[in-house]
Protein backbone atom coordinates (compact mmCIF):
# COMPACT_ATOMS: atom_id res chain seq x y z
CA UNK A 1 0.00 0.00 0.00
CA UNK A 2 1.65 3.17 -1.20
CA UNK A 3 0.61 6.67 -0.21
CA UNK A 4 1.80 10.21 -0.78
CA UNK A 5 3.02 11.38 2.59
CA UNK A 6 2.44 14.90 3.88
CA UNK A 7 4.19 15.10 7.27
CA UNK A 8 3.44 18.73 8.19
CA UNK A 9 5.77 21.18 9.90
CA UNK A 10 5.31 19.98 13.50
CA UNK A 11 6.18 16.39 12.73
CA UNK A 12 9.51 17.66 11.38
CA UNK A 13 10.20 19.62 14.58
CA UNK A 14 8.50 19.55 17.98
CA UNK A 15 6.76 16.28 17.11
CA UNK A 16 9.81 14.52 15.67
CA UNK A 17 9.17 11.67 18.10
CA UNK A 18 5.94 11.00 16.18
CA UNK A 19 7.94 10.68 12.94
CA UNK A 20 10.45 8.33 14.58
CA UNK A 21 7.67 5.97 15.59
CA UNK A 22 6.03 6.18 12.16
CA UNK A 23 9.35 5.29 10.49
CA UNK A 24 9.80 2.40 12.87
CA UNK A 25 6.32 0.93 12.70
CA UNK A 26 4.77 1.51 9.28
CA UNK A 27 7.01 -0.72 7.12
CA UNK A 28 5.94 -3.76 9.18
CA UNK A 29 2.38 -3.24 7.96
CA UNK A 30 3.31 -2.78 4.33
CA UNK A 31 2.43 0.90 4.49
CA UNK A 32 4.77 2.79 2.21
CA UNK A 33 4.79 6.52 2.78
CA UNK A 34 6.49 8.45 0.01
CA UNK A 35 7.04 12.02 1.12
CA UNK A 36 5.64 14.68 -1.20
CA UNK A 37 8.65 16.49 -2.56
CA UNK A 38 8.99 20.15 -1.60
CA UNK A 39 5.67 20.31 0.23
CA UNK A 40 4.82 23.56 1.98
CA UNK A 41 2.94 24.43 5.18
CA UNK A 42 -0.84 23.90 5.02
CA UNK A 43 -1.42 27.25 6.70
CA UNK A 44 -3.01 25.72 9.80
CA UNK A 45 -5.50 27.89 11.66
CA UNK A 46 -3.28 30.96 11.76
CA UNK A 47 -2.89 31.81 8.07
CA UNK A 48 -6.65 31.63 7.56
CA UNK A 49 -7.13 34.20 10.31
CA UNK A 50 -5.30 36.81 8.23
CA UNK A 51 -5.79 35.89 4.55
CA UNK A 52 -8.35 33.36 3.41
CA UNK A 53 -7.79 32.86 -0.30
CA UNK A 54 -4.03 32.89 0.16
CA UNK A 55 -4.26 30.19 2.79
CA UNK A 56 -6.31 28.01 0.44
CA UNK A 57 -3.83 28.73 -2.35
CA UNK A 58 -0.76 27.56 -0.42
CA UNK A 59 -2.68 24.53 0.75
CA UNK A 60 -3.79 23.78 -2.83
CA UNK A 61 -0.17 23.88 -4.05
CA UNK A 62 0.40 20.66 -2.10
CA UNK A 63 -2.69 18.99 -3.54
CA UNK A 64 -1.74 20.05 -7.05
CA UNK A 65 1.76 18.63 -6.66
CA UNK A 66 0.37 15.39 -5.21
CA UNK A 67 -2.13 14.85 -8.01
CA UNK A 68 0.26 13.38 -10.55
CA UNK A 69 0.93 10.39 -8.32
CA UNK A 70 -2.75 9.32 -8.27
CA UNK A 71 -2.52 8.13 -4.69
CA UNK A 72 -4.21 9.14 -1.46
CA UNK A 73 -2.40 11.82 0.50
CA UNK A 74 -1.79 10.75 4.08
CA UNK A 75 -0.88 13.00 6.97
CA UNK A 76 -0.29 12.20 10.65
CA UNK A 77 -1.27 15.73 11.76
CA UNK A 78 -4.88 16.60 12.55
CA UNK A 79 -4.51 20.27 11.59
CA UNK A 80 -2.96 19.44 8.21
CA UNK A 81 -5.66 16.82 7.73
CA UNK A 82 -8.42 19.32 8.38
CA UNK A 83 -6.95 22.18 6.37
CA UNK A 84 -6.09 20.10 3.28
CA UNK A 85 -9.55 18.54 3.34
CA UNK A 86 -11.20 21.89 3.84
CA UNK A 87 -9.32 23.23 0.82
CA UNK A 88 -10.59 20.29 -1.20
CA UNK A 89 -14.18 20.83 -0.10
CA UNK A 90 -14.22 24.54 -0.77
CA UNK A 91 -12.39 24.11 -4.06
CA UNK A 92 -15.24 21.84 -5.15
CA UNK A 93 -18.10 23.68 -3.41
CA UNK A 94 -17.45 27.30 -4.36
CA UNK A 95 -17.02 27.86 -8.12
CA UNK A 96 -15.72 31.38 -7.68
CA UNK A 97 -13.01 30.20 -5.32
CA UNK A 98 -12.14 27.31 -7.60
CA UNK A 99 -11.70 29.68 -10.49
CA UNK A 100 -9.42 32.03 -8.56
CA UNK A 101 -7.38 29.20 -7.09
CA UNK A 102 -6.98 27.71 -10.56
CA UNK A 103 -5.60 31.00 -11.90
CA UNK A 104 -3.26 31.37 -8.92
CA UNK A 105 -1.91 27.82 -9.29
CA UNK A 106 -1.42 28.40 -12.98
CA UNK A 107 0.84 31.35 -12.17
CA UNK A 108 3.05 28.79 -10.45
CA UNK A 109 2.82 26.37 -13.37
CA UNK A 110 0.43 24.02 -11.54
CA UNK A 111 -3.11 22.80 -11.97
CA UNK A 112 -5.54 20.90 -9.77
CA UNK A 113 -8.69 18.93 -10.54
CA UNK A 114 -10.02 18.65 -6.98
CA UNK A 115 -9.90 14.88 -6.92
CA UNK A 116 -7.18 14.04 -4.44
CA UNK A 117 -8.31 12.26 -1.30
CA UNK A 118 -6.64 13.41 1.92
CA UNK A 119 -6.58 10.97 4.80
CA UNK A 120 -5.28 10.79 8.34
CA UNK A 121 -2.74 8.13 9.23
CA UNK A 122 -5.13 6.77 11.87
CA UNK A 123 -7.71 6.19 9.14
CA UNK A 124 -5.12 4.26 7.10
CA UNK A 125 -4.16 2.14 10.09
CA UNK A 126 -7.70 1.18 11.12
CA UNK A 127 -9.28 0.87 7.68
CA UNK A 128 -6.54 -0.16 5.25
CA UNK A 129 -4.33 -2.15 7.59
CA UNK A 130 -7.12 -3.22 9.92
CA UNK A 131 -7.43 -4.30 13.54
CA UNK A 132 -6.68 -7.91 12.75
CA UNK A 133 -3.22 -7.19 11.38
CA UNK A 134 -2.48 -4.83 14.27
CA UNK A 135 -3.50 -7.54 16.71
CA UNK A 136 -1.33 -10.11 14.92
CA UNK A 137 1.68 -7.77 15.05
CA UNK A 138 1.12 -7.08 18.76
CA UNK A 139 3.30 -9.87 20.06
CA UNK A 140 3.86 -8.16 23.39
CA UNK A 141 0.30 -8.06 24.59
CA UNK A 142 0.00 -4.95 26.71
CA UNK A 143 -2.38 -6.50 29.22
CA UNK A 144 -3.13 -4.32 32.21
CA UNK A 145 -2.16 -1.10 30.48
CA UNK A 146 -5.03 1.38 30.78
CA UNK A 147 -5.17 3.99 28.08
CA UNK A 148 -7.30 7.08 27.54
CA UNK A 149 -7.98 7.46 23.80
CA UNK A 150 -7.66 11.14 23.02
CA UNK A 151 -8.73 12.05 19.49
CA UNK A 152 -8.67 15.79 19.92
CA UNK A 153 -10.95 17.91 17.86
CA UNK A 154 -9.91 18.42 14.27
CA UNK A 155 -9.60 14.80 13.17
CA UNK A 156 -13.34 14.21 13.52
CA UNK A 157 -14.58 17.57 12.33
CA UNK A 158 -16.61 18.61 9.31
CA UNK A 159 -14.08 18.12 6.57
CA UNK A 160 -13.70 14.37 6.48
CA UNK A 161 -13.08 13.24 2.99
CA UNK A 162 -16.31 13.04 1.09
CA UNK A 163 -18.71 13.46 3.97
CA UNK A 164 -19.36 17.10 4.79
CA UNK A 165 -20.87 17.57 8.20
CA UNK A 166 -22.83 14.35 8.25
CA UNK A 167 -21.40 11.79 10.61
CA UNK A 168 -23.65 9.02 9.31
CA UNK A 169 -22.10 9.16 5.87
CA UNK A 170 -20.54 5.89 4.80
CA UNK A 171 -17.40 7.75 3.88
CA UNK A 172 -16.81 9.22 7.32
CA UNK A 173 -14.23 7.26 9.15
CA UNK A 174 -15.68 8.01 12.56
CA UNK A 175 -18.22 9.95 14.61
CA UNK A 176 -17.56 13.65 15.43
CA UNK A 177 -18.71 13.34 19.04
CA UNK A 178 -17.99 9.76 19.99
CA UNK A 179 -15.37 8.24 17.73
CA UNK A 180 -14.37 4.66 18.57
CA UNK A 181 -11.76 3.56 16.03
CA UNK A 182 -8.79 4.37 18.25
CA UNK A 183 -10.52 2.67 21.22
CA UNK A 184 -10.63 -0.46 19.07
CA UNK A 185 -7.04 -0.01 17.95
CA UNK A 186 -5.96 0.17 21.61
CA UNK A 187 -7.88 -3.03 22.35
CA UNK A 188 -6.17 -4.68 19.35
CA UNK A 189 -2.78 -4.05 20.96
CA UNK A 190 -3.95 -5.94 24.05
CA UNK A 191 -4.19 -2.82 26.21
CA UNK A 192 -7.42 -1.56 27.76
CA UNK A 193 -9.15 1.51 26.41
CA UNK A 194 -10.72 3.28 29.38
CA UNK A 195 -13.88 5.35 29.30
CA UNK A 196 -12.85 8.84 28.24
CA UNK A 197 -15.69 11.27 27.88
CA UNK A 198 -13.29 14.11 27.00
CA UNK A 199 -12.00 12.24 23.96
CA UNK A 200 -12.88 14.94 21.44
CA UNK A 201 -12.63 18.02 23.65
CA UNK A 202 -10.26 20.76 22.57
CA UNK A 203 -6.78 21.01 24.15
CA UNK A 204 -6.68 24.76 23.55
CA UNK A 205 -4.35 24.42 20.56
CA UNK A 206 -2.62 27.73 19.82
CA UNK A 207 -4.44 29.47 22.66
CA UNK A 208 -1.58 28.07 24.73
CA UNK A 209 0.54 30.85 23.26
CA UNK A 210 -2.03 33.63 23.48
CA UNK A 211 -4.51 32.84 26.27
CA UNK A 212 -2.42 30.48 28.32
CA UNK A 213 -4.61 30.24 31.40
CA UNK A 214 -7.64 29.17 29.41
CA UNK A 215 -5.65 26.56 27.48
CA UNK A 216 -4.16 25.21 30.71
CA UNK A 217 -7.67 24.92 32.12
CA UNK A 218 -8.73 22.80 29.16
CA UNK A 219 -5.65 20.60 29.58
CA UNK A 220 -6.41 20.17 33.27
CA UNK A 221 -9.83 18.80 32.36
CA UNK A 222 -8.35 16.36 29.87
CA UNK A 223 -5.72 15.12 32.31
CA UNK A 224 -8.19 14.86 35.19
CA UNK A 225 -10.62 12.78 33.17
CA UNK A 226 -7.83 10.40 32.19
CA UNK A 227 -6.65 10.09 35.77
CA UNK A 228 -10.15 9.62 37.17
CA UNK A 229 -10.73 6.77 34.76
CA UNK A 230 -7.57 5.01 35.86
CA UNK A 231 -5.50 5.62 32.71
CA UNK A 232 -1.74 4.97 32.87
CA UNK A 233 -1.26 7.15 29.82
CA UNK A 234 -3.06 9.11 27.13
CA UNK A 235 -2.74 8.13 23.47
CA UNK A 236 -3.16 10.83 20.87
CA UNK A 237 -2.87 11.39 17.12
CA UNK A 238 -2.17 15.13 16.94
CA UNK A 239 1.16 16.97 17.41
CA UNK A 240 -0.37 20.02 19.07
CA UNK A 241 -2.49 17.96 21.49
CA UNK A 242 0.62 16.01 22.44
CA UNK A 243 2.68 19.14 22.98
CA UNK A 244 0.08 20.93 25.08
CA UNK A 245 -0.61 17.93 27.32
CA UNK A 246 3.00 16.80 27.61
CA UNK A 247 5.19 19.92 27.61
CA UNK A 248 2.68 21.97 29.60
CA UNK A 249 1.72 19.28 32.13
CA UNK A 250 4.12 20.59 34.80
CA UNK A 251 2.62 24.04 34.32
CA UNK A 252 -0.91 22.68 34.74
CA UNK A 253 0.29 21.15 38.00
CA UNK A 254 1.88 24.33 39.29
CA UNK A 255 -1.10 26.51 38.37
CA UNK A 256 -3.86 24.27 39.72
CA UNK A 257 -1.99 22.43 42.48
CA UNK A 258 -2.58 19.08 40.79
CA UNK A 259 -0.11 16.19 40.68
CA UNK A 260 -0.64 14.76 37.23
CA UNK A 261 2.09 12.47 35.97
CA UNK A 262 0.50 11.07 32.84
CA UNK A 263 2.65 10.31 29.78
CA UNK A 264 1.05 11.38 26.51
CA UNK A 265 2.12 9.17 23.62
CA UNK A 266 1.30 8.86 19.92
CA UNK A 267 -0.78 5.96 18.64
CA UNK A 268 2.13 4.82 16.49
CA UNK A 269 4.32 4.66 19.60
CA UNK A 270 1.71 2.48 21.26
CA UNK A 271 1.66 0.12 18.28
CA UNK A 272 5.47 -0.03 18.39
CA UNK A 273 5.44 -0.90 22.08
CA UNK A 274 2.93 -3.66 21.41
CA UNK A 275 5.27 -5.00 18.74
CA UNK A 276 8.00 -5.25 21.36
CA UNK A 277 10.11 -2.39 20.03
CA UNK A 278 12.44 -0.49 22.33
CA UNK A 279 11.13 2.87 23.64
CA UNK A 280 14.13 4.75 22.18
CA UNK A 281 13.39 3.35 18.73
CA UNK A 282 9.94 4.96 18.99
CA UNK A 283 11.10 8.35 20.22
CA UNK A 284 9.60 7.72 23.67
CA UNK A 285 12.78 9.05 25.27
CA UNK A 286 11.74 12.48 23.97
CA UNK A 287 8.62 12.75 26.11
CA UNK A 288 8.68 15.56 28.68
CA UNK A 289 6.55 13.48 31.05
CA UNK A 290 8.51 10.23 31.03
CA UNK A 291 7.01 6.77 31.15
CA UNK A 292 6.00 5.96 34.71
CA UNK A 293 7.06 2.95 36.79
CA UNK A 294 3.71 1.12 36.57
CA UNK A 295 3.84 1.55 32.78
CA UNK A 296 7.39 0.23 32.58
CA UNK A 297 6.48 -2.76 34.71
CA UNK A 298 3.61 -3.68 32.41
CA UNK A 299 5.90 -3.33 29.38
CA UNK A 300 8.59 -5.48 30.98
CA UNK A 301 6.06 -8.14 31.81
CA UNK A 302 4.70 -8.12 28.28
Amino acid at each position, binding site marked *: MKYTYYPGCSVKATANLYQESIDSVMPSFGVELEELEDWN*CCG*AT*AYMSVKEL*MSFAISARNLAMAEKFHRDVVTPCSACYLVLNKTNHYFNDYPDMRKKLGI*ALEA*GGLSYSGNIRVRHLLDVMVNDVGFEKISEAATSKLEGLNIAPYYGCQIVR*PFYYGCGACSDSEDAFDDPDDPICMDRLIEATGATSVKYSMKTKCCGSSLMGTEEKQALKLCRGLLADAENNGAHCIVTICPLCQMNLDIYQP*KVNSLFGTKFNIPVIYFTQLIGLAMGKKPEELGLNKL*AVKMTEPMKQILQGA
Partner: protein
Amino acid sequence: MLEREVVYESVLDHDFLDEIYSLPGGHEIKKCIQCGTCSGSCPQGAVMDYAPRKIFSLIRAGFRDEVLESNTIWYCSSCYTCAVRCPKEIKITDVMYALKRIAIKEGKAKAGRKAAVLSKTFMNMVNKYGRNHETELMTRYILTADPFSAFNFMPQGWRLFSNGRLPIMPHKIKNIEQLRKILKKVEELGEI
Protein backbone atom coordinates in the same frame (compact mmCIF):
# COMPACT_ATOMS: atom_id res chain seq x y z
CA MET B 1 -28.93 46.34 39.63
CA LEU B 2 -29.24 45.65 35.95
CA GLU B 3 -28.11 48.58 33.87
CA ARG B 4 -28.90 48.85 30.23
CA GLU B 5 -27.73 51.36 27.72
CA VAL B 6 -30.23 52.24 25.05
CA VAL B 7 -28.85 51.75 21.56
CA TYR B 8 -30.53 53.70 18.82
CA GLU B 9 -31.31 52.17 15.47
CA SER B 10 -29.38 54.94 13.73
CA VAL B 11 -26.01 54.07 15.26
CA LEU B 12 -26.15 50.45 14.17
CA ASP B 13 -24.37 49.28 11.05
CA HIS B 14 -26.89 47.63 8.77
CA ASP B 15 -24.30 46.92 6.10
CA PHE B 16 -22.48 44.58 8.47
CA LEU B 17 -24.91 41.78 7.75
CA ASP B 18 -24.41 42.16 4.00
CA GLU B 19 -20.68 42.13 4.57
CA ILE B 20 -20.92 38.76 6.31
CA TYR B 21 -23.40 37.45 3.71
CA SER B 22 -20.95 38.15 0.93
CA LEU B 23 -18.38 35.72 2.37
CA PRO B 24 -18.30 32.16 1.04
CA GLY B 25 -20.98 30.39 3.06
CA GLY B 26 -21.72 33.63 4.91
CA HIS B 27 -25.37 33.83 3.85
CA GLU B 28 -25.95 30.74 5.96
CA ILE B 29 -26.15 32.82 9.11
CA LYS B 30 -29.66 33.76 7.95
CA LYS B 31 -30.65 30.27 8.97
CA CYS B 32 -29.61 30.69 12.62
CA ILE B 33 -32.53 29.81 14.91
CA GLN B 34 -30.79 31.03 18.09
CA CYS B 35 -30.97 27.59 19.67
CA GLY B 36 -27.67 28.03 21.52
CA THR B 37 -26.18 24.65 20.62
CA CYS B 38 -23.01 26.47 19.55
CA SER B 39 -22.65 28.38 22.82
CA GLY B 40 -23.34 25.28 24.87
CA SER B 41 -20.76 23.29 22.90
CA CYS B 42 -18.01 25.88 22.86
CA PRO B 43 -15.12 24.98 25.18
CA GLN B 44 -14.40 28.70 25.53
CA GLY B 45 -18.00 29.90 25.88
CA ALA B 46 -17.63 30.74 29.57
CA VAL B 47 -14.80 33.23 29.04
CA MET B 48 -16.13 34.90 25.92
CA ASP B 49 -17.65 38.38 25.99
CA TYR B 50 -20.50 36.94 23.93
CA ALA B 51 -20.75 33.22 23.21
CA PRO B 52 -21.38 32.36 19.51
CA ARG B 53 -25.19 32.48 19.65
CA LYS B 54 -25.07 36.08 20.84
CA ILE B 55 -22.49 36.95 18.19
CA PHE B 56 -24.95 35.88 15.49
CA SER B 57 -27.66 37.92 17.06
CA LEU B 58 -25.38 40.96 17.28
CA ILE B 59 -24.29 40.58 13.65
CA ARG B 60 -27.90 40.48 12.51
CA ALA B 61 -28.78 43.54 14.57
CA GLY B 62 -25.83 45.50 13.22
CA PHE B 63 -23.64 45.78 16.33
CA ARG B 64 -20.48 45.92 14.26
CA ASP B 65 -17.98 47.31 16.76
CA GLU B 66 -19.25 45.17 19.62
CA VAL B 67 -18.66 42.07 17.55
CA LEU B 68 -15.30 43.04 16.07
CA GLU B 69 -13.90 44.30 19.34
CA SER B 70 -15.11 41.35 21.39
CA ASN B 71 -12.70 38.77 22.76
CA THR B 72 -15.00 36.05 21.40
CA ILE B 73 -13.46 35.78 17.97
CA TRP B 74 -9.97 35.40 19.47
CA TYR B 75 -10.98 32.73 21.93
CA CYS B 76 -12.19 30.54 19.08
CA SER B 77 -9.58 27.79 18.82
CA SER B 78 -11.04 26.31 15.60
CA CYS B 79 -12.16 23.05 17.20
CA TYR B 80 -15.26 23.10 14.94
CA THR B 81 -17.46 21.49 17.60
CA CYS B 82 -20.15 24.12 17.02
CA ALA B 83 -19.94 23.61 13.27
CA VAL B 84 -20.57 19.85 13.43
CA ARG B 85 -23.39 20.24 15.94
CA CYS B 86 -25.25 23.21 14.43
CA PRO B 87 -28.70 21.93 13.41
CA LYS B 88 -28.75 24.44 10.54
CA GLU B 89 -25.24 23.47 9.39
CA ILE B 90 -23.90 26.99 9.66
CA LYS B 91 -20.12 27.15 9.19
CA ILE B 92 -19.65 28.97 12.49
CA THR B 93 -15.87 28.56 12.62
CA ASP B 94 -15.59 30.20 9.20
CA VAL B 95 -17.63 33.15 10.39
CA MET B 96 -15.18 33.51 13.29
CA TYR B 97 -12.27 33.45 10.82
CA ALA B 98 -13.98 36.11 8.72
CA LEU B 99 -14.46 38.29 11.79
CA LYS B 100 -10.80 37.83 12.73
CA ARG B 101 -9.75 39.01 9.28
CA ILE B 102 -12.00 42.07 9.34
CA ALA B 103 -10.84 42.96 12.86
CA ILE B 104 -7.16 42.67 11.88
CA LYS B 105 -7.69 44.67 8.69
CA GLU B 106 -9.45 47.48 10.51
CA GLY B 107 -7.14 47.52 13.53
CA LYS B 108 -9.95 46.45 15.85
CA ALA B 109 -8.24 43.35 17.20
CA LYS B 110 -7.47 44.91 20.57
CA ALA B 111 -8.94 42.05 22.59
CA GLY B 112 -7.03 39.62 20.45
CA ARG B 113 -3.86 41.59 20.01
CA LYS B 114 -1.63 38.63 20.88
CA ALA B 115 -3.55 36.18 18.69
CA ALA B 116 -3.42 38.64 15.82
CA VAL B 117 0.35 38.99 16.23
CA LEU B 118 0.73 35.20 16.35
CA SER B 119 -1.32 34.72 13.19
CA LYS B 120 0.54 37.42 11.27
CA THR B 121 3.93 36.13 12.42
CA PHE B 122 2.91 32.65 11.33
CA MET B 123 1.87 33.92 7.92
CA ASN B 124 5.14 35.80 7.44
CA MET B 125 7.07 32.70 8.42
CA VAL B 126 5.29 30.61 5.80
CA ASN B 127 5.73 33.29 3.14
CA LYS B 128 9.44 33.42 3.95
CA TYR B 129 10.31 29.73 4.15
CA GLY B 130 7.29 27.92 2.74
CA ARG B 131 7.08 26.15 6.06
CA ASN B 132 6.52 27.06 9.65
CA HIS B 133 9.66 27.16 11.75
CA GLU B 134 8.24 26.73 15.24
CA THR B 135 11.35 27.97 17.06
CA GLU B 136 11.56 31.24 15.13
CA LEU B 137 7.77 31.66 15.17
CA MET B 138 7.62 31.58 18.97
CA THR B 139 10.71 33.79 19.38
CA ARG B 140 9.38 36.45 17.01
CA TYR B 141 5.89 36.22 18.44
CA ILE B 142 7.05 36.68 22.03
CA LEU B 143 9.34 39.58 21.14
CA THR B 144 6.55 41.37 19.24
CA ALA B 145 3.56 40.60 21.42
CA ASP B 146 4.99 40.69 24.92
CA PRO B 147 8.77 40.56 25.50
CA PHE B 148 8.30 40.37 29.25
CA SER B 149 6.47 37.08 28.89
CA ALA B 150 9.64 35.43 27.53
CA PHE B 151 10.39 34.32 31.06
CA ASN B 152 7.07 32.53 31.18
CA PHE B 153 7.82 30.49 28.05
CA MET B 154 11.33 29.45 29.07
CA PRO B 155 10.56 26.26 31.04
CA GLN B 156 8.51 24.91 28.13
CA GLY B 157 11.19 25.91 25.62
CA TRP B 158 13.77 24.13 27.72
CA ARG B 159 11.62 21.01 28.00
CA LEU B 160 11.40 20.89 24.21
CA PHE B 161 15.07 21.66 23.65
CA SER B 162 16.45 19.25 26.24
CA ASN B 163 14.36 16.46 24.74
CA GLY B 164 15.67 17.15 21.24
CA ARG B 165 12.44 18.63 19.92
CA LEU B 166 13.48 22.18 19.09
CA PRO B 167 15.37 22.50 15.81
CA ILE B 168 17.45 25.66 15.53
CA MET B 169 17.63 25.95 11.76
CA PRO B 170 14.58 26.59 9.55
CA HIS B 171 13.83 24.52 6.47
CA LYS B 172 13.22 26.54 3.35
CA ILE B 173 11.37 24.82 0.52
CA LYS B 174 13.28 24.59 -2.77
CA ASN B 175 10.66 26.15 -4.99
CA ILE B 176 9.79 29.12 -2.78
CA GLU B 177 9.59 31.24 -5.94
CA GLN B 178 6.67 29.15 -7.17
CA LEU B 179 4.85 29.67 -3.88
CA ARG B 180 5.48 33.41 -4.08
CA LYS B 181 4.17 33.58 -7.64
CA ILE B 182 0.97 31.86 -6.50
CA LEU B 183 0.58 34.27 -3.59
CA LYS B 184 1.26 37.28 -5.81
CA LYS B 185 -1.44 36.14 -8.19
CA VAL B 186 -3.92 35.82 -5.34
CA GLU B 187 -3.08 39.36 -4.34
CA GLU B 188 -3.81 40.58 -7.86
CA LEU B 189 -7.09 38.68 -7.97
CA GLY B 190 -8.08 40.08 -4.60
CA GLU B 191 -9.15 38.20 -1.51
CA ILE B 192 -12.61 36.70 -1.48
